[in-house]
């Protein structure tokens, strides 16, 4: 991967891009952690004296990252989170500072100082850096416990003797099942998730954990759905309207579940929640189309390949109305509640970087 050098981009950002592109950092969680640590690095080691400058710096690097790896929406999410943290910290630091000056006017201050536009980010606050680092460390700790918080809820959602369907492999879903299996018995049906067939690995792992597991081919999803109590899947990203960008086949599963009125639960660590919308299927970087040889057609079949067009998209879009519940690290939420979560997580002006 050749990365054209840009003067202002931090070298760690370039390294991160390289690592992700080379596949050395894989999986959304690892990417998220790496992104946060790179951004933290920028905050600690760069030259800046005002919050404004810092935010510009983060935005610049963030934009560069997003452009280089457009598919990993969680990178953008992290950039937005950090910006929000900067804002929050700045505000509270500023408040502390002014409070020290004249504490009496505090009530009035609160009333008048609503909204960011009124806050002047150009004021230099020396203590900002340390409080930022502290806050980011807290945030990192939150990320670490994220999946644990989700799996903790397993026993609330999976009951004895239930039959659960899932698709392909997701680390989080796997942990979720294992957690539930500690206290009760249930059955899992795994659709293999063609063409990548991650479901095979998942099935092996669950079977090793002594969970009753059935592996089915994707064509049997509809047929098997009638006996399923619940669908639990992971996702790659959750769009701002509550729609999913998840591996191919997810839409099939969700549709079949809808037909049989089976609830669909989606495990959602909040860093996957992105303030983006799907505008059109031709949208740049919404989907990844890999080579048809990766599981669709045998590469040795050149004469056939000459005559046909084969597509191999990695993701499906699942509209929000097919999702029953998101299980996030803060608890269960309906798709219609996503907008609230979004506004809690990110600052409105950062939605479009």
């Amino acid at each position: 991967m050749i990365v054209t050098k840009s003067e202002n981009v931090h070298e760690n950002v370039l390294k991160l891009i390289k690592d992700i592109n080379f596949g050395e950092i894989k999986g959304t969680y690892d990417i998220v952690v790496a992104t946060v640590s790179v951004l933290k690095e920028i905050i600690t080691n760069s030259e800046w004296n005002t919050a404004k400058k810092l935010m510009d710096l983060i935005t610049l690097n963030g934009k560069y990252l997003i452009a280089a790896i457009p598919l990993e929406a969680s990178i953008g999410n992290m950039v937005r989170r950090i910006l929000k943290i900067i804002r929050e910290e700045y505000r509270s630091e500023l408040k502390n500072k002014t409070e020290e000056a004249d504490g009496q006017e505090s009530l009035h201050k609160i009333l008048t100082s609503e909204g960011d536009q009124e806050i002047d980010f150009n004021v230099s606050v020396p203590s900002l850096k340390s409080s930022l680092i502290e806050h980011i460390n807290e945030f990192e700790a939150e990320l670490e416990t994220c999946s644990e918080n989700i799996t903790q809820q397993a026993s609330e959602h999976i009951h004895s003797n239930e039959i659960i369907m899932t698709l392909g492999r997701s680390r989080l879903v796997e942990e979720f099942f294992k957690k539930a299996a500690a206290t009760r018995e249930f059955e899992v049906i795994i659709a293999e998730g063609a063409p990548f067939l991650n479901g095979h690995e998942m099935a092996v792992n669950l079977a090793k954990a002594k969970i009753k597991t059935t592996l089915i081919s994707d064509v049997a999803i509809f047929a098997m759905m009638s006996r399923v109590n619940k669908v639990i899947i992971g996702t790659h990203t959750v769009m701002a309207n509550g729609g999913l960008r998840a591996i191919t086949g997810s839409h099939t599963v969700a549709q079949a579940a809808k037909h049989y009125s089976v609830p669909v639960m989606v495990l959602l660590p909040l860093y996957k929640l992105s303030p983006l919308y799907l505008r059109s299927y031709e949208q740049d970087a919404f989907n990844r189309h890999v080579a048809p040889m990766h599981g669709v057609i045998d590469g040795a079949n050149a004469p056939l390949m000459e005559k046909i067009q084969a597509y191999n998209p990695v993701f499906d879009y699942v509209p929000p109305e097919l999702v029953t519940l998101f299980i996030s690290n803060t608890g269960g939420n309906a798709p219609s509640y996503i907008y609230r979560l979004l506004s809690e997580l990110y600052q409105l002006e950062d939605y479009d970087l």
Partner: protein
Amino acid sequence: MSKITKKDVNSKLGKKDVLQAVVLADDFTTNLTPVQNVYPSILMPVVNVPLLDYLIETLVQSRIQELYLYCSSHIESLKKYVQSKNSDDISINLIISDGCRSLGDALRDIDTKGAIRGDFILIRGDAFTNANLKNLLELHRVRIEKDKGAAMTLLLRDVGSTNIPSLIEESSLVVADGSNNKVLFYKKLAKDEKKVKLELEWFLDHDKIEINTGLLDTHIYLCSPAVPPLFSDNFDFQTMEDFIRGVLMNEEILDSRIYWQRLDSEEYALPVTSWRAYHMLSREILQRHSYPLTPDTLSFVRNFTYLSRSTYRHRNAVLARGCVIQRDSIVGPNSMLGKDTFITRSTIGNNCIVGANVQIENSYILSNVFITDNCMIKNSIIFSNCQLDKKVNLDACILSPSVHLKSNSSYVDSVLEYESGKLNVTKISELNLDTDKELLYFTCKESKDGKDCDGYSTDSEDSSSEDDSAPASPLPDDTNMFLSEVIDSLLRGYQDGLNCENLILEINSSRYAYNVSIREVSYNVIKAILSLPLHYLSDQKSPINQANYQSTLKKMISYFFTIIQNYIKTEDAQDDCLKAMEEAATTIQELLSFMQRLLHLFYERDILSEEKILEWYELNGDNENEVQSLEIKKAVGPFIKWLKEAEEDSSDNEED
């Protein structure tokens, strides 16, 4: 699995071990006239990106840290290019040697320069791949551990069939030990060969011998440090084929062995050995077979949007209203397409301006080309900085850089270039005569689909043969009338889509009306069918040219097949049929080159028997030394040869 092996590889190689790749900027053998005058093979743009860019991308992905680029022509452009490319991930070193003319020379030169420190990857300039070369090199190293004399591992891609028209020249026969992939015999399957001789010893010495034919040389070779010295020691090694053959023949003396490695079926590789391969590669890149080397995922091109039906558009490209990009196409940055322009299976480079109502099919338009309204471009390659004025019509043409075509001009099957300020038009078919190798141009593909994979390409014929000087011998009146009657009924039948049975009745009744013998009937019917396309085309007011004539004739023959079958039953009728064909070929210029395909067709459809054709062919030679009959003889020669060999072949089979 792959993850694990990757990690293993990483730990094994360690940090200090620098992986080297040697890339020959020129391939010395490529058949891409006239590219060699414009670019070194490595800078040939494929889907708007030079091959070198793809290659560097692959090398960086495979963690190859050092790249030696061996340049022998267009040195300045290479230097400039490399300077613009330098990055931290890979160091690109140029080895410059002007006037090197073969792969052998290049490797000898590399040997004397002593740049190679360990196992390296040798890549010829026309290679394209997305394979993980590091893993492959590691496999080669494992082989070396087992066999100290393992000199080279050929990287071959299994394409599954030898019948791919665009790759028919490239598929090679590999005879190897089935247990360890040691190559015993390697050869490109030449067209004309019917038999392959293999040594009995091989079979007795090895438990199992694997014989593969659907393999494609990727032009990537995993080499031990022993390879360049081997070239130095053997001055007769010029090409890679020489090297392989030489090493295999003197395995004992040279103490070197060659292995082969099948490319993982998920990985992609295709060398640009001909325009056909170029065509195929471009299409497959657009269809994402080469993922992640696709326009929208390559980091250095960026901003391409992947749309449905494998079309790509740059964010800065401007498409006017009514403009259709049908499939397998790409429009580069800053290009503008005019109103109602139609594009399919084509690439349009950077900064091109295309006017309104232009049709572009199966064509490659490189950067900075200016095409004015109402042009028609089919199966053509237009190099950069060309300009086409209004209503230019191109079919199967190659335009060298900076060619300017005046409005309303029309070219077919030609190479157009400027020579001392004058436009020089060379027929592609004539080019072949100089180079004795056929220029594999991708339009052949169209005529080649279907069953006919034996490769009787029509464009190898000399199309500029002399004009029909001798008119057909005058026929007796009644027969002449009968002939025109038959032509009339057939033409009408064809245009109105009448049933063949009815036409037979009609012909039979005219036969009685004009009182012609049954032998004359069969003779005239064939003749009528062969001349029918001319009448039909003039009726349709379409231009009469070789391609039109042939395609119409083909359609007509399949339409009138029942009639032909009805009349050509006996051996006598076959004689008449052949005579009629001969006669027609002398008068109809367009038929001449189609003759051998026609014979083949009739032979395949059991209209004509093998014996009859051979008999006719021998007889034909004895005829009065007419120029035409010689002409025909020449035209059908290859088919006759094939026929004879096929006969021997089948009789051989029985003896086996």
